[in-house]
């Protein structure tokens, strides 16, 4: 039973991270119909920025929760800025171009950012401080869940609830949904589409950054390549849940995390990524709109 619980917990934990990153993919796809290949790199840059910030803060003598919060804040700020810049440089000029152009541009940006971090920092794994170790959980909870896992699951859940509330009730959220549904119409109604698109990227990047910081603390090390691996998985999660659907991204993340965890636990750990991809292929073949998506009718 313990084994099962460990796998379950592990699955929920990684699933939460996938969900946080997947939200960025799904929001951008919903608005621009673009697969933001560079999103995984934003997550990675968030982790790196947090590492750098945390190191400097600790060297200045700061300890405890404040390190975590400050490092996370700085990571979020920077990732958002990166997300914003990526959109302006690589995607905005190609809004009217045929489908393939922004895709290639996105792939190029992903490669660029990976190598940028690798060259500017290092290609080795960097140890990531456990920023979550100072979190104290009440006895009852601490018995069956580690502090970092708890933090990840709870933070992710809280953030996703906030996002859902923002999208549903705020003016900006409604504008975002409008632009996702019909960009032209939204523009005609006076919505500043460019600003909405920028904000979408910023929010997605912020969430990914938080995910990066949490995972860095949890796993204990990062390198420039984590964005690619996590990116593909998170994208799988987004498609699984139904690309363009926010609850879908959350559900997809959890399903993927659990599937991976149990498959590696009970079947084989070598083929971990194969399970994720196989799941993606099956979903796309049999239900391309994902678990929560709606199949689109073509207008003739």
């Amino acid at each position, binding site marked *: 039973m313990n084994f099962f619980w460990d796998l379950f917990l592990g699955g929920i934990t990684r699933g939460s991270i996938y969900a946080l990153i997947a939200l960025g993919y799904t929001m951008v*796809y919903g608005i621009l119909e673009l*697969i933001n290949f560079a999103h995984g790199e934003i997550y990675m*840059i968030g982790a*790196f*920025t947090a*590492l*750098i*910030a945390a*190191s*400097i803060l600790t*060297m200045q003598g700061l300890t405890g929760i404040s390190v975590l919060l400050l490092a996370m804040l700085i990571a979020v700020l*920077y990732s958002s*800025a*990166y997300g914003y*810049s990526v959109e302006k*440089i*690589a995607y905005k*000029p*190609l809004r009217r*171009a045929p*489908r*393939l*152009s*922004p*895709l*290639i*541009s996105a*792939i*190029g*940006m*992903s*490669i*660029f*950012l*990976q*190598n*940028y971090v690798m*060259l*500017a*920092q290092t290609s080795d794994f*960097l*140890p990531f*401080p456990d920023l979550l170790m100072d979190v104290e959980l009440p006895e009852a909870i601490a018995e069956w869940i580690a502090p970092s896992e708890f933090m990840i699951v709870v933070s992710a859940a809280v953030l996703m609830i906030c996002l859902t509330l923002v999208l549903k009730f705020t003016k900006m959220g409604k504008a975002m949904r409008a632009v996702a549904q019909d960009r032209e119409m939204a523009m005609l109604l006076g919505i500043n589409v460019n600003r909405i698109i920028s904000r979408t990227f910023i929010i997605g990047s912020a969430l990914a950054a938080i995910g990066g910081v949490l995972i860095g603390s949890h796993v204990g090390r990062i390198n420039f390549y984590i964005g690619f691996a996590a990116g*593909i998985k998170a*994208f*799988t999660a987004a*498609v699984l849940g139904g690309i363009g659907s926010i609850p879908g991204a959350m559900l997809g993340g959890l399903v993927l995390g659990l599937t991976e965890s149990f498959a590696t636990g009970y079947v084989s750990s*070598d*083929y971990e*990524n*194969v399970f994720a*991809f*196989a799941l*993606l*292929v099956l979903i*796309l*073949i049999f239900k*391309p709109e994902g678990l929560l998506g709606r199949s689109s009718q*073509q207008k*003739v």
Partner: protein
Amino acid sequence: MKFGEELKKSFFIALGLILLTFPIMVIQVNTIENVVVWRWRNLIFIGLGGFIFSFFCLLFQKKKSESSPQTPAGHSRLHRIIDEPRLYRPALSIIVFLALIFPFVFSHYQVNIMTTALIYVMLGLGLNIEVGLAGLLDLGYVAFYAVGAYSYALLNYHFGLGFWTALPAGAILAAFAGILVGFPVLRLRGDYLAIVTLAFAEIIRLVLENWNAFSFGPSGISNIPRPGFFGIKLTPEQSAIYMYFLLILMCIFTIFVIHRLQHSRIGRAWVALREDELACQAMGIDKTKAKLAAFALGATWAGMAGVLFAAKTTFINPASFTFLESAMILSIVVLGGMGSVVGVVIAALALILIPEYLRVFSNYRMLLFGAALIIMMVFRPQGILADRRKKYEFHKLQSGGEN
């Protein structure tokens, strides 16, 4: 001031870049020794580089919007060279001559590089069928490449099959793979097709990496024989030259077949499929057959290239067949100008040879590649040579007669 607007903008962009890249470029953390290295020099580097680069980009954009109606697609300088027989024939003769003497003038190492470039020409032309002609976004092309390479390696290992038997075998197996992959994904549109092909390719690579009993895992397969030359034993140098000419022949063959396919009934059907899938069906074209044909033919070329690759490097392992490879081949097709044979050839040669000759920047190779993709897409999305449609001539007296 003439470029005042651009200078001002560039200044702020450079400033923004400095702020943005500050943590990653300037700060280097060494957690073992608990030291922080501050690399202030990089600030200047970013600032200056960013300023200059954005200045020229803005300038270029300004020029583009101000200039008179652009040269219509199909009339760029390169096209004019191709059209004019007086320019085209001598140019072609020179190229042929250079290609023939190349291996005898340059070193063994250079010949190998050129041979690699030629393999990518084949790959680019093969993918061009799927992406450039039929408009099928395939991000997993490398899988077919792997099928070809591993076919030769394994058939040779288990059954002693030689190169010349393995070549068609690899082609057929890859074609099969193309149909197998194509069949379930036919109804997926655009991006979904791209993702599913990417996933398929990654699955194949991971299986090759982990199923040691079948593929010998990450250590790969070695001692793959080079193609025989009438049974004569060749030195490595001679063998390299032999492979080079073999590739030249294969490329000519590829260009010939692709050209025929482009200007045929099925070639037109593919372009119609790419332009408007629904209207294409309404005109009586079976989109399933057309898509499968595109996949199968594209895969066939990757398969052959794979066999050639295995024979050339005599050693293969799963690391050669990553997503990055697919991305490179796709870039060749897109940068070359979708559908344009000459464009794809030029792009393949450029993409492989330029990094080799700019060895000085080898660390920055991938960085520059990524940047090049973005720059090309933003500033010249149609690629080097846009595809042109065939023009037909008709005599006035009676209809009929073809150019």
